[in-house]
């Protein structure tokens, strides 16, 4: 990564899926534990559980001026609506991480590198849909592991999730991370 290069990640789903939380964890991990600059913004509307929701993280070694995503390198789509809304904002050749349980219809498949992880299903195995975001974060980590240590993310998770669910969240993160590693799209510098 050159000094002023930006890594732009957009995470989108329904309100209540923990989209904002993983954005915050990711931003904090880069900023406090990986020695980079990061800005985390979130969509803001009157929606709570159920509405469309997104969270963005911009990472750079240099100063970050424009705080939002311009053209995403990675799009994490946890719902069909989220995918339909934000797919056009994904760079050509960018990585689309999706949950096949809730995202069925992907247009222009050839333009993007798709990485499919059943986050919701894995979360159910651990005890509930509320761990879906941690699974997704683990899967996302697989895509950016050349930029950040696993321990940095685990520290940020510890800072941000309730103490009584910490262990399960860490487990969910690991499940997402180790799911189908061979299929992780290659090619980003």
């Amino acid at each position, binding site marked *: 990564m050159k000094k002023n290069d930006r890594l732009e990640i957009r995470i989108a789903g329904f309100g209540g899926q923990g989209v904002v939380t993983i954005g915050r964890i990711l*931003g904090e991990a880069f*900023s*406090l534990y990986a020695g980079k600059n990061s800005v985390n*913004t979130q969509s803001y509307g009157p929606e709570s559980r159920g509405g469309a929701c997104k969270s963005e993280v911009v990472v750079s070694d240099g100063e970050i*001026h424009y*705080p*939002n995503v311009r053209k995403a390198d990675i799009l994490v789509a946890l719902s069909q609506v989220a995918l339909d809304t934000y797919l056009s904002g994904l760079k050509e050749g960018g990585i689309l991480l999706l949950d096949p349980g809730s995202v069925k219809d992907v247009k222009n498949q050839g333009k993007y590198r798709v990485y499919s992880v059943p986050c919701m299903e894995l979360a159910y195995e651990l005890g509930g849909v509320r761990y879906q975001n941690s699974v997704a974060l683990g899967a996302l980590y697989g895509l950016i592991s050349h930029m950040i240590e696993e321990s940095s993310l685990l520290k940020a998770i510890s800072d941000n999730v309730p103490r009584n669910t910490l262990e399960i969240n860490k487990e969910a993160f690991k499940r997402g991370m180790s799911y189908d590693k061979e299929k992780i799209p290659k090619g980003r510098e």
Partner: protein
Amino acid sequence: MIKKKYPKAVNKVSWASCLLKPGRHYLQGNEACIEGALVAGCRVYAGYPITPATEAMEAASRRFPEVGGRFIQMEDEIGSACVLIGASWGGAKALTVTSSPGFSLMQEAISIAIISETPMVIIDIQRPGPGQGYITASQEDVMQARWGHHGEGPIIALAPSSVQEMFEVTIEAFNLSERWRTPVLVMAEETVAHMRESVVIPPLEAIEIINRKKPQDLGISPEAYCPWGHAVVAPMANWGEGYNVNFVGLVHLEDGNVTRYSPEMNRHCIERLQKKIEVDANSTGCLETKFLEDCSHLMVCYGVVSRTAMEAVAEARESRGLKIGYIRLRRLWPFPEKQLRDIVCDVDTVFVPEMNLGMMKHPITEALRDRCRRIVSIPSIGVLHSPDYILSEVYKDI
């Protein structure tokens, strides 16, 4: 009953240990301004929750009791702003954080705080209007900040552009309010209030904190104390300290007398307020500049929009070799007209991107109309400009 734990609340000696530790933190803008206020010595918060400033109120409700301060949820924004006045005359530094509709309700209190020379800080996390408008980002209150209150009352208004600055500018706001005995406004936007970024907190001893001058500090006895005299910024006596406290909302003489009215006395009172802010407080450090050496065009911006503008300026210079400079107004009011005229002598086009339909374009035009060929507004309503949008507007005209 749940026993509330305020571990260090009563122990005034150790409050410093309850402030955020020096070092790197990852905070939201709304949280950073509360931390800044605490570092500045603010110990009274009164407010009414409103989107998108609610997180600041939540943070205040947690943090103020922890450092031995007071947190009051008032019945509305009118009451909140009045609490600041009372707290300030009681000797405390006081803060409220609100958003545009609430800021409208505070105008009356701001007006009386100006004439009674009451130090206090109001942070306005701007959202679009009029009415309830919406809850996204805007810069539509920048004129209300200056002209919203009735009367010839000058005001200081600052414009932060990052979470780090939400921390720093809040401290600066308290320093200015205490130094000049005046209400100070921090005009932030929803974008920066909800943004999370790292904030580097310096060691406490490295942060300059200014406290108001009191008559006892200057060796003025209660008998000799003249509530509105002694200096351009009169030393402020607080209630309960043995001095004749004179809180007055009418134009007044130096001794606080309001009954011997004359047009001269009226003019003198208003001119003193005007000079205090427009001349004395309008010093250096209001502008941030870049790429001015060779520029033939100019981007003048403020607040969070300046981050997009900077991105666009850097890109235009790099990809098209466009000679465009960058000026950011760190302080909106008093408008840094002289400073602007000092550094800009002859450019072609001045672009002013704003999250409104072109408000600060007016004072900028007044300052630069004989220094450039034309001034172009780049408006955006309800959403932060993207660099591509600014660039397309720039290229359209050049």
